[in-house]
């Protein structure tokens, strides 16, 4: 399997075999990081962040530096020609002249696809509005795989903003390809999963009550209600505290539950959950860097898979 030169825009751009290859590579990187510390020497990653980011941008930058490569880019669009009205197509054409691979986050849905169609270098979608975030999905799946060994037959609850949650959409699409996966979708009516994502799932329930669903779950994927996705402030205020997971609620859950969150969180997970052994959201962050190391190395053709 060869991922060299490919783009990663949507979760289904990678086959199950390709994802499994990346997980295996990430495990090798975790086990022996020194073996990979020079493999991207001489290669340049461009980070194009039109929207704020802490974990995704820093983990991509850390990943490239830990592979021996270097990083250029912007984290604030107003400091680039974007502020002068430059199109995505012209920006990516420019970046492709200087860098070997690009990672892009943009508030509009489909922006990464527009870039990929005009780019001569691989483009990685680091979040396009409320649409997809495929590298967060790789992070989530690696975290589950390291703990549970696989995905077949798991019951996963997706909770919170399922309408605009790009991490939710990507994770559902990728996980739905494994056998026996059951989804329990926990959201207010206004933040239900969009139709094009519902179409991907074979086995799912839509519910409104987190406490009721909790005892059935092997994995709980909590998400933030994202203020930046609402055009109407009133709607955001009404829905923002729909679901809050705390230590008391967690008493009803299985011992083997994994609580995941793409972060940042606001109030949806109380800090009294942080020290519970079922809280995996901090481990998830570190896995994010390792899987992005694997992805960068693979797209740059620096590893055989």
């Amino acid at each position, binding site marked *: 399997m060869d991922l060299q030169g490919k783009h990663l825009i949507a979760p289904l751009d990678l086959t199950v075999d390709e994802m499994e290859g990346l997980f295996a590579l990430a495990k090798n990187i975790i086990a022996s990081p020194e073996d990979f510390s020079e493999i991207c020497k001489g290669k340049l990653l461009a980070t194009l962040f039109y929207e704020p980011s802490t974990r995704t941008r820093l983990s991509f930058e850390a990943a490239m530096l830990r592979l021996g490569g270097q990083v250029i880019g912007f984290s604030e669009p107003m400091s680039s020609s974007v502020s002068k009205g430059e199109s995505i197509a012209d920006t990516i054409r420019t970046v492709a002249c200087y860098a070997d691979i690009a990672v892009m986050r*943009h508030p*509009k*849905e*489909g922006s990464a*696809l527009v870039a990929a169609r005009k780019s001569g270098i691989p483009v990685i979608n680091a979040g396009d*509005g409320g649409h997809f975030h495929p590298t967060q999905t790789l992070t989530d799946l690696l975290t589950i795989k390291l703990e549970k060994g696989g995905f077949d037959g798991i019951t996963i609850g997706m909770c919170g903003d399922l309408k605009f949650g790009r991490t939710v959409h990507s994770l559902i699409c990728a996980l739905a390809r494994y056998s026996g996966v059951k989804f329990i979708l926990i959201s207010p009516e206004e933040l239900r999963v969009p*139709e094009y994502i519902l179409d991907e799932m074979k086995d799912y329930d839509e519910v409104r009550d987190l406490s009721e669903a909790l005892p059935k779950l092997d994995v709980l994927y909590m998400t933030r209600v994202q203020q930046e*996705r609402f055009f109407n402030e009133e709607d955001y205020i009404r829905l923002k505290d729909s679901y809050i997971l705390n230590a008391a609620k967690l008493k009803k859950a299985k011992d083997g539950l994994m609580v995941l969150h793409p972060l940042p969180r606001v109030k949806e997970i109380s800090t009294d959950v942080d020290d519970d052994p079922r809280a995996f959201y901090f481990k998830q962050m570190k896995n994010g860097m390792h899987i992005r190391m694997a992805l960068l190395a693979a797209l740059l053709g620096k590893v055989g898979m």
Partner: protein
Amino acid sequence: MEINSISNGIVIDHLQAGSGMKVLDYLDIDTGLGSVALIMNVPSRKYDRKDIIKLENYENVDVNVLGLIDHNATVIYIQNCKIVKKIKLTLPEKVTNVLRCKNPRCITSQEDTIPHVFHLSDSTGKYKCDYCDNIIKGHVENLKK
């Protein structure tokens, strides 16, 4: 009203009354190649009223989009005063700059040089935006122009 028949060319018949102008617009015909007649609101045995487009001396017109705008229409090819072919319209698999994505979060709402591209999503005539995956009905009300 008397409308002459054509000897060579294409007739698009049984268009929904009132839609002829829009169809002509989407067919994007080079009107310098021959005579073009748009006949509106004529009596029809099948539909009560209909529009007709006659394209004299035209051979190749991309009627793909017509399946989306008015799939009940009939396309008839005429040579030497004889009907040589009739086309049954189907929903096109892909349409570019025909449907408009109405998702305000889609990149097409920000950059107006990006073509609006949709693929047929299912047999009921739903189309999915290539960029944001928003699903809309392939219907006249969602046309771009």
